[in-house]
């Protein structure tokens, strides 16, 4: 735990809190969007908001891979199980996400489908090796962090000549989503959401580097600070954002220098480029169709593409009526603004995806902070 605890030290937190209180201009608001669910989780788990002055607030962005996956893709995964009797390997977070009719992988499993929770792509490959008579599909989701391991798995499957392994690819791209949020009318024209600055993702940036954010900082005149996932990282980055805003700067700064470089991990990028290509468009829950925002498996690896290997028939997906996940993901609404929040939608019985993962804004509000957020009360004045 050394090297981790030192990023959670209370004395340093208090010193940073004092600096933030000193430097934040009481005459203005600082609304800072953490794009990444990892930051949302850290903010709630460590109570970082408590250490902020009232005019510094966090807006929770769409960077939870589970939360942004549209219902149609969950339905698709369930159809793979029902119509092709595959073994579906999935990361644990996905199992409880509700699809159409509040069906989920967990419910499909209870009804007899073969769903296996895995911790890595290696587990999925092993399951394929151990079950040569069965088709094994890996439910690949996540941002740039989880994409390279999927690429490795596909390459390994080819090298091993595995005929019964394929990938249901749902990998999405961070820069496209940030671009989409900044371009949205709520942010750009109507001013209903003001986002003054961004925390850049930690793990994603380790792969893609800090360079991709330079365009946003310039184009949209918003500062970006790449921040680590530890609570002190979040506080230090908050201070850096406040300083940029006070000085009228909008640059990409890197707080997470112990991991992130400007160019990122070139080897991982090359692997991803070898196996994946851009989808022309992909649907995100909350953001709708976003052009060039996701990856699919290249034609030269088509044999490992579950979407090509298995035809499924899909009914049109239906969002739960009243669920505000789409607006919450864009920062337009807060979880407590949703009529379903804590009422019929709780982590035990999630209606929308934001209530499932601990990185989801609704689950974090419910589990860590609901006593401070009576309905209708804003954490940012």
């Amino acid at each position, binding site marked *: *735990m050394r090297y*981790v605890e030192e990023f*959670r030290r*209370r004395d340093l*937190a*208090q010193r940073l*809190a004092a600096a933030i209180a000193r430097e934040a201009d009481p005459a203005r608001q600082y609304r800072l969007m953490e794009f990444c*669910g*990892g930051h949302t*989780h850290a903010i*709630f*788990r*460590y*109570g*970082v*908001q*408590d*250490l902020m002055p009232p005019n510094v607030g966090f807006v929770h962005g769409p960077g939870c*891979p*589970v939360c942004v996956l549209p219902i149609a893709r969950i339905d698709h995964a369930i159809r793979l199980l029902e119509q092709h009797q595959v073994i579906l390997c999935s*990361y*644990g*977070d*996905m*199992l*409880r996400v509700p699809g159409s009719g509040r069906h989920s992988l*967990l419910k499909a499993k209870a009804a007899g489908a073969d769903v296996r*929770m*895995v*911790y890595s792509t290696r*587990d999925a490959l*092993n399951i394929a090796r151990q079950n040569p008579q069965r088709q094994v599909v890996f439910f690949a*989701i*996540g*941002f740039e*962090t*989880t994409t390279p391991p999927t690429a490795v798995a596909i390459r390994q499957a080819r090298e091993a000549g595995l005929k019964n392994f394929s990938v249901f690819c749902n990998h999405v791209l961070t820069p496209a989503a940030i671009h989409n949020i900044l371009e949205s009318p709520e942010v750009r024209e109507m001013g209903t959401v003001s986002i003054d600055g961004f925390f850049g993702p930690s*793990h994603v940036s380790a792969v893609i580097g800090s360079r991709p954010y330079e365009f946003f900082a310039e184009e949209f005149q918003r500062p970006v600070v790449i921040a680590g996932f530890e*609570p002190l990282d979040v506080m230090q980055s908050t201070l850096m954002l406040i300083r940029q805003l006070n000085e009228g700067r909008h640059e990409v700064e890197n707080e997470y220098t112990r991991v992130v470089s400007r160019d990122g991990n070139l080897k991982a990028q090359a692997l991803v480029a070898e196996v994946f290509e851009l989808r022309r468009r992909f649907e995100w829950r909350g953001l709708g169709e976003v052009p060039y925002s996701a990856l699919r498996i290249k034609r030269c690896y088509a044999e490992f593409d579950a979407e090509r290997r298995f035809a499924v028939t899909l009914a049109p997906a239906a969002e739960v009526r009243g669920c505000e996940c789409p607006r919450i993901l864009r920062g337009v609404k807060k979880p407590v603004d949703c009529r379903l929040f804590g009422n019929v939608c*709780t*982590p*035990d019985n999630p209606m929308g995806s934001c209530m499932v*993962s*601990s*990185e989801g804004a609704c*689950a974090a509000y*419910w*589990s*860590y*902070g*609901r*006593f401070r957020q009576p309905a209708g009360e804003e954490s940012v004045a």
Partner: protein
Amino acid sequence: MNAEVKAFAQRLDLKRGRVDMSHGSGGRAMAQLIEQLFLRHFDNEWLRQANDQASFAVAAGRMVMSTDGHVISPLFFPGGDIGSLAVHGTINDVAMSGARPLFLSAGFIIEEGFPLADLERIVASMARAAREAGVPVATGDTKVVERGKGDGVFITTTGIGVVPPGVTISGELARPGDAILLSGNLGDHGVAIMSSRENLEFDTRIVSDSAALHGLVAAMVEAAPGIHCLRDPTRGGLATTLNELARQSGVGMKLQETAIPIDPAVSAASELLGLDPLYIANEGKLVCICAGEDAGRLLHVMRQHPLGRRAAIVGEVIDDPHALVQMETAFGGSRIVDWLSGEQLPRIC
């Protein structure tokens, strides 16, 4: 042939043999399994009566009874196995009333094909745990289910005990101002289990804390008979146990994260797996809620006991109509410690 000398044609093959359907059929094979495996290990005067029930004189006073089904996977884990766990788990449930546990019963549901060697290992471990705890398994039952209809072996144990006079311990007795004590490090059992799960194997020196806590409880009850609540934070961990007590008593709780003892190796494993030690299962720990003035004395007594060396006061009971459990984080903020939702699932990134 002398039936007295040779009741069974062949000895049970405890090295290579497997449980088959006949071992649960009520016939000679079952009698042999009971005699050569269960009786041999559990041996005591009540089982030797060979009746369908154990017969004993009832102690005077208030009795308690508790039952617990054990379906753990894997069956063997660092620091214990399903057998020792089945003994400790039920003894602890009985002891959390302040009672002295007297007897256990054990029901086995065994899957066809289960190796007799594994069964013997489990039964021997169970017998050892019962002997060490001084709580005999006085009656039992064996059933065999077809292959594929069980997961190796399931064990249900029931325990009875007697509560010393003047002791009233119950989940609804927590009052604002009470102290919350914890008997030791959190999360050892859950992490030990996870480290030996098939698709997760990782190296750790952590072993399960599985232990019978009635000795510790006896010492505590003697020092402070007015203890309000006792509970062992098993499934769902400390967080779930405190939420249960808060709801039963209609009070809130305020924890200090820095006071909660956790082994650094458990912290590290939890960090890696994206789990929270507050929600990880324990099998040899207890939570005690007592009046503020009893806390110091109890803490001293707990720390004198081998199972309470790392005991700590971790928080206090507060007035809160919403019955929320809150925690002041080590970082200096505060957060809610909610009920566990569903299973604790690892995060993706």
